[in-house]
């Protein structure tokens, strides 16, 4: 994801508070567990102190301490820690043991302190000696306790760690899952053709994305309204041209039917041809406007065979005028499409074939199905279109250099746009007898 990743953003937002919460939780869980453990270890030291206290002997004026070496050995032995003791008379005089072991301050029963450069825990035990009490201090280094504290901390941190990990995973996949409707949305938009300006269906989108979908649909609506307006204008202009052109054509044909000087006639014939060309151009512009992406076209189930058959009369008249053998091989070819545009596409192909074929040539109109794909094509035995020209002839207003006749260069461009508006593919192939086969293959209907 380019730019600000929503995932990273969510993690940045979520993880610090979660980590803080977990840390507090760990501390809260740690102290209640470390307390009893510390007490238990202290109790063991107290037990040692009591045991040591039993070895104080009270004399007349003095206290004696006779700890057999074997017992001392046992008392001082611990797997992890060093154990110290110090025995103090009720008067505060040293009786035995490690004389520098610091006593807990005041009335405290235990404390942590330093001894011989090590951290030690020291407990103070009162041992009976005569009528009063001696003080026995027992100290122990902190190896065991620190080990325990570490273990306990780890034990309480481990679930926290799992929770943090789970949060990460949940955020990662949750965001992916949560954004899936958006991904679907973007897939839908990406898969659209440029001309598809229908509003996006907001039904499946999560409510949070509704404003986005709404804004997109608003934009699509505006674009398609602008496009409709432009198409309406173009269509109106083309329609408006037709009536005056019909008048012009009527009068030139009337004039041509009358006797007149040859020079005049030649010029009038030019006017007549130009009129017909202009009329054709108006039709082609109309077709372009209708084939334009997003045009409101009236699609229905139509049979290409019927469309070709319906125009056969008009084409035959043109072919007779040029002495061309126009033939048909029409098989049923149902497609979902705009009948006007399909007729215009086929008319353009036939017109091209008739225009560029030699006198006495042969033009064949075909419709049918191949592997379930409906197709229409027109084959001629004219000069054909050179391989390197085949892409260029599809451009608007392009004409192959040196081409005779009076085409506008729009015909094949229109056919291509009409094909595109039907999600169909246009092809130009070599004809069986020279010339070329130009047509459209439609997607599975």
């Amino acid at each position, binding site marked *: 994801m380019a730019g600000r990743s929503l995932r990273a953003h969510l993690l940045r937002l979520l993880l610090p508070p979660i980590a803080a919460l977990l840390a507090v939780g760990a501390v809260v869980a740690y102290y209640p567990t470390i307390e009893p453990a510390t007490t238990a270890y202290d109790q063991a030291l107290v037990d040692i102190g009591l045991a040591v206290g039993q070895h104080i002997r009270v004399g007349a004026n003095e206290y004696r301490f006779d700890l057999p070496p074997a017992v001392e050995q046992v008392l001082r032995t611990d797997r992890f820690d060093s154990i110290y003791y110090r025995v103090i008379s009720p008067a505060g005089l040293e009786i035995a043991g490690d004389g520098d072991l610091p006593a807990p301050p005041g009335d405290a029963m235990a404390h942590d302190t330093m001894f011989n450069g090590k951290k030690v825990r020291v407990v103070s035990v009162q041992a009976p000696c005569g009528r009063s009490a001696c003080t026995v201090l027992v100290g122990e280094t902190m190896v065991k306790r620190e080990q325990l504290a570490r273990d306990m901390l780890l034990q309480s941190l481990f679930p926290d760690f799992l929770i943090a990990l789970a949060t990460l995973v949940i955020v990662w996949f949750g965001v992916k899952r949560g954004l899936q409707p958006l991904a679907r949305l973007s897939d839908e938009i990406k898969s659209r053709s440029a001309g598809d300006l229908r509003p996006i269906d907001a039904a499946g989108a999560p409510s949070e994305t509704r404003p986005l979908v709404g804004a997109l649909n608003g934009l699509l609506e505006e674009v398609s309204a602008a496009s409709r307006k432009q198409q309406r204008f173009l269509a109106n202009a083309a*329609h*408006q041209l*037709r*009536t*005056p*052109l*019909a*008048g*012009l*054509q*009527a*009068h030139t*044909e*009337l004039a041509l*039917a009358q006797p007149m000087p040859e020079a005049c006639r030649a010029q009038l014939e030019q006017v007549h041809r130009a*009129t*017909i060309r202009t*009329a054709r151009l108006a039709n082609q512009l*109309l077709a372009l406007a209708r084939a334009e992406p997003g045009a409101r076209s*009236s699609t229905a189930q139509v049979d290409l065979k019927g469309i070709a*058959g319906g125009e*056969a*009369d008009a084409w*035959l*008249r043109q072919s007779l005028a040029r002495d061309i*053998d*126009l*033939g*048909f*091989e*029409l098989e049923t070819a149902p497609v979902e499409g705009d*009948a*006007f545009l399909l007729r215009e596409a086929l008319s353009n192909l036939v017109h091209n074939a008739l225009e560029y074929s030699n006198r006495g040539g042969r033009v*064949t109109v075909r419709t049918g199905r191949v592997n379930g794909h409906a197709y229409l094509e027109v084959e001629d035995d004219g000069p054909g279109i050179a391989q390197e020209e085949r892409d260029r002839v599809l451009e608007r207003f392009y004409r192959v250099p040196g081409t005779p006749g009076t085409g506008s260069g729009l015909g094949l461009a229109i056919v291509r746009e009409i094909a595109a508006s039907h999600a169909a593919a246009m092809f130009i192939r070599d004809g069986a007898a020279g010339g070329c086969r130009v047509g459209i293959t439609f997607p599975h209907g």
Partner: protein
Amino acid sequence: MRLLIVEDDAPLASGLQRILEAEGHAVDVTPRGEDAVAAAAHEKFDLVILDIGLPHMDGFEVLRRLRGTASDKTGPTPVLVLTARDAIEDRVRGLDLGADDYMVKPFAMPELTARVRALLRRSQAHGGPRIAHGPLTLDTVARRAFLKGEPLELAAREWAVLEVLLAKVEKIVSKEAIIQAVAGWGDDLSPNAIEVYVSRLRSKLEPAGIRIRTVRGFGYMLEEYK
């Protein structure tokens, strides 16, 4: 024949008028639909050429009113609709309202005059016993054909094929359409059989200058007699 042109574009209307007058018809012109309806109520026209894109009352409305008059019900006046639009809906609507033919502007004059001739022929032949095409005459009641006044022998199937072609002069008639028109129920006519009948018709009619053109892969067209 009396023709009425309803067209608001003056140059086109005058052009059509002159061409049709040159064909020997008496032609009236009006740019307004209301006037056309009024005129048709008083006089009987043999054909109306009607533009759809009229101001005020449009061609569809004119057509609806023409078809609504009492005299039209007894003998409908053929109506050739002209339009600058080619939306399919317009075409269908025009034909639904009772238009007999439909031409999109602009059009070649020979095409217009051919359609006018065809419409007039059809309406004259409507119910009439005789069909004429150049030197050929068919008496549909007696089922006898004459060529240059001489009786012409036609087999039943040949007669049927010729009748179909005569109904659509200058228009391509597909082989399927001919088979449908010629074959009775249960008959199984192959396209090849049609070819045989057409070739027999040709050998009988071509010497008199009546030509039946083959449209490769599609059907046949009876050419206008010249």
